[in-house]
């Protein structure tokens, strides 16, 4: 197991370097001068040149690239061009908020999506199935900035149960949980809708297999047939989708963060892009890449837990 994990982590290094190289090139191809953005529209060319020198942007691209890659591989992401703060510190300040939202949305999606998907599969073409399909389609069709505003109007403005402004003090767990509820529902609904559809489809396929018929013929109780034999065999596609979706949630939570006024990696990356904060963008890409590698690794490990044949391989 340890060998497998180490091999996977080592295999991620070339991917990481390739991503970093691409990011380095892309942020420099995009027009827009960080020095001009920082200094504003009244800055003279002299002031802009001085700042470019200070930021190291007057060095050759090779020199900048080499310095970036070597520092990144040693875990040093440098400081933000705009704020001068350590990128590690900036990310560490908001990462818990992103992880809170991602994990809570994933749990919400699984807790709602899997049972509803199973229920729909067991009632194929019945009222429950049709309702689940329609609702999941609606869930997929509502972008967060629409469902989020509806949630805020209802639960914040009308009933006043939750605040509009998110972003709790990390040491205050009650406040953290309180402010996590609405964003989790908004983001988790989309994931739940997706998981519902995948679960339904995987369960329908699984329940049609010979081993299910055999189990029933042997007199295994129906509940056990569904939850143990059916669901376990349907789990591989569900885990795959959850793994993929967690990656998407990590990267695409920016709209949720904006609507619910939560800090997070998504907002930082949009801000860095607007301000052409090259160092921040590069640092964030390394962190994103690492998180995605970890999520994929966990997904692979889960395959082994679910299916002994994968473990044997």
């Amino acid at each position, binding site marked *: 197991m340890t060998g497998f994990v180490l091999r996977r982590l080592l295999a991620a290094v070339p991917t990481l370097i390739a991503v970093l190289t691409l990011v380095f090139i892309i942020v420099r191809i995009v027009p827009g001068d960080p020095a001009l953005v920082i200094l*504003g529209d*009244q800055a003279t060319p002299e002031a802009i040149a001085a700042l470019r020198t200070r930021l190291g942007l007057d060095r050759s691209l090779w020199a900048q690239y080499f310095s970036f890659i070597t520092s990144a591989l040693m875990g040093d992401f440098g400081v933000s061009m705009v704020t001068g*703060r350590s990128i590690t510190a900036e990310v560490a300040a908001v990462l818990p908020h992103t992880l809170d939202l991602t994990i809570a949305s994933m749990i919400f999606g699984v807790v709602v999506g899997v049972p509803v998907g199973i229920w729909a599969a067991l009632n194929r073409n019945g009222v429950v199935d049709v309702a689940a399909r329609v609702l999941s389609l609606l869930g997929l069709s509502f972008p967060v900035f629409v469902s989020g*505003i509806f949630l805020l109007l209802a639960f914040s403005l009308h009933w006043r149960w939750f605040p509009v*402004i998110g972003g709790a003090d990390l040491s205050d767990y009650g406040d953290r949980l309180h402010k996590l509820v609405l964003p989790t529902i908004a983001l988790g609904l989309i994931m739940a809708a997706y998981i519902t559809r995948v679960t339904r489809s995987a369960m329908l396929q699984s329940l049609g297999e010979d081993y299910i018929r055999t189990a029933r013929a042997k007199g295994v109780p129906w509940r056990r047939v569904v939850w143990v034999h059916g669901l376990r065999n349907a789990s591989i596609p569900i885990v795959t989708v959850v793994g993929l979706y967690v990656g998407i949630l990590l990267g695409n939570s920016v709209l949720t963060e904006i609507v619910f006024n939560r800090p997070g990696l998504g*907002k930082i990356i949009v801000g860095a892009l607007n301000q052409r904060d090259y160092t921040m963008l590069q640092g964030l890409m390394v962190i994103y890449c690492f998180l995605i590698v970890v999520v994929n690794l966990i997904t692979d490990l889960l395959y082994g837990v679910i299916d002994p044949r994968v473990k044997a391989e």
Partner: protein
Amino acid sequence: MRGFRAALLGSAMAIASAIGLHGAAQTQTAPTLRVGMAAQDVGRLDPHFAVSTIDRVVVAWMFNGLVRFKPGSINPAEIEPDLAERWESSADGKTWTFHLRRGVQFHGGFGELTAEDVVFSLRKSGTAATSAFAADYRAIESIEAVDSHTVRIVLRENIPSVLGILTNYSGGYIVSKRAVEQRGDTFVRNPIGTGPFALDRVTPNQSAELVAHAQYFRGAPQIGRISYRFIPSDASRDLAFQNRELDLNYGRADQTWVNRTRAVPNTVVDVFEPGELAIISLNTRQPPFNDIRIRQAMAHAVNRSELVRFRGQDVAREGQSVVPRGYLGFSNDNGLLPADPARARALLAEAGHPNGITIRAIHTQLPEMLNMMQVVQQQLRRAGITLDLQVVEHATFHQQIRQDLSPMVYYSAARFPVADIYLTQFFHGRSRVRTPTAVTNFSHCDQADSQIDAARVSTDVEEQKRLWAEAQRILVQNVCGVPLIETLLVFARRDNLDYGYELRGSMSLGPLITEATRLR
């Protein structure tokens, strides 16, 4: 299934209980002003690098200048003492001596303000490597400390408003020399000033928290803390304001927004100066605008009253010159061409375009600027001018317009309220883009350089005004730019927030929170 339901119910009750307990625990113990700002985050809080609106608003609460605009005013005639209690100037207006207040304390135990801090700050402001406003201080020859509380400034040449560059605005803020030297590059997020509020902490993407500066020289502020929240979504910010989670909210210069917000109970909408003048600069050195008839056609095609109606009568007014209204030296006696699409078509035909003309222009995707340009696009179409807008991201827009990649440039800006600044930055030959001394002259006009230069060094106020008026007449008649509208600043506040002064204008682009500001 029954067990599952019980577990679900139990979890729901636990969450509800946590929420309820938490709600009960939320009690206000100190008067905190909660401000919502349309931004992802603050940038640089070193005042000499504070160029964005979000940064300008907050540094004004933390720093002072030698002099200041009277709170609520942007009238240079109302500049009053701030860190300097008095000053005098030589007969030729080139030597200025400022006498500092005694006992002014910096935040965070950084000691008493001395002449050394003032000399250091103004030299920093005038240095390109340490300030975004260095160009404003070119006229200063020397700054020296005469004694611990006296500073002497000597100018190379006269400038229209010496006090203007020493106010609580842009490079005029005074910082702690010791703090800058001690904190180095981190000073941008750990600033030390003398203002009524000190920075407590910045939580990235979330808020900047400020605390009252108990030793503030005008007296301890009545507000204990300021929570400056970064809320980029207009809808969410408005909801937070309606939900009473904010006391002061950055508004939209839009009539619908103003009307809707005024209808919120216990709410006051403040609309104040400075107005940002939007001008379309036409590159007079490149086709097609090197032909004055096409520039005149553009001027006749634009209908300013329609643009004002589009933006809102309460928040916008027609541009009347290439300098915003109310600035010292503004003149509307300049022969501005009226809206006349038929005359525009005739001019195009005269210039060899009887079937109209297509102009390709680069424009930003920022909604408030894009919307306005789309209205202009429709007006131009009526006159036979097809505007092919190439919409790009905002930072790209700023870079490309400085590379002369667009023959016409829509630009909206407010500056220090003296005509010289606007005329110099936007219409002086020295400020032409793609030159070593470039600022924002996109039209490449230089026809009024002699008037602008003469006015700058003149010591006769009436002569100065005459020269500025003449410069505006020349620039308008040459159609270097087509003025569109001036858009005012808008904030909404709860009616229990009393600024402590009448808000008519603010050079920091947001309400000044002073020691007298209170939550009733």
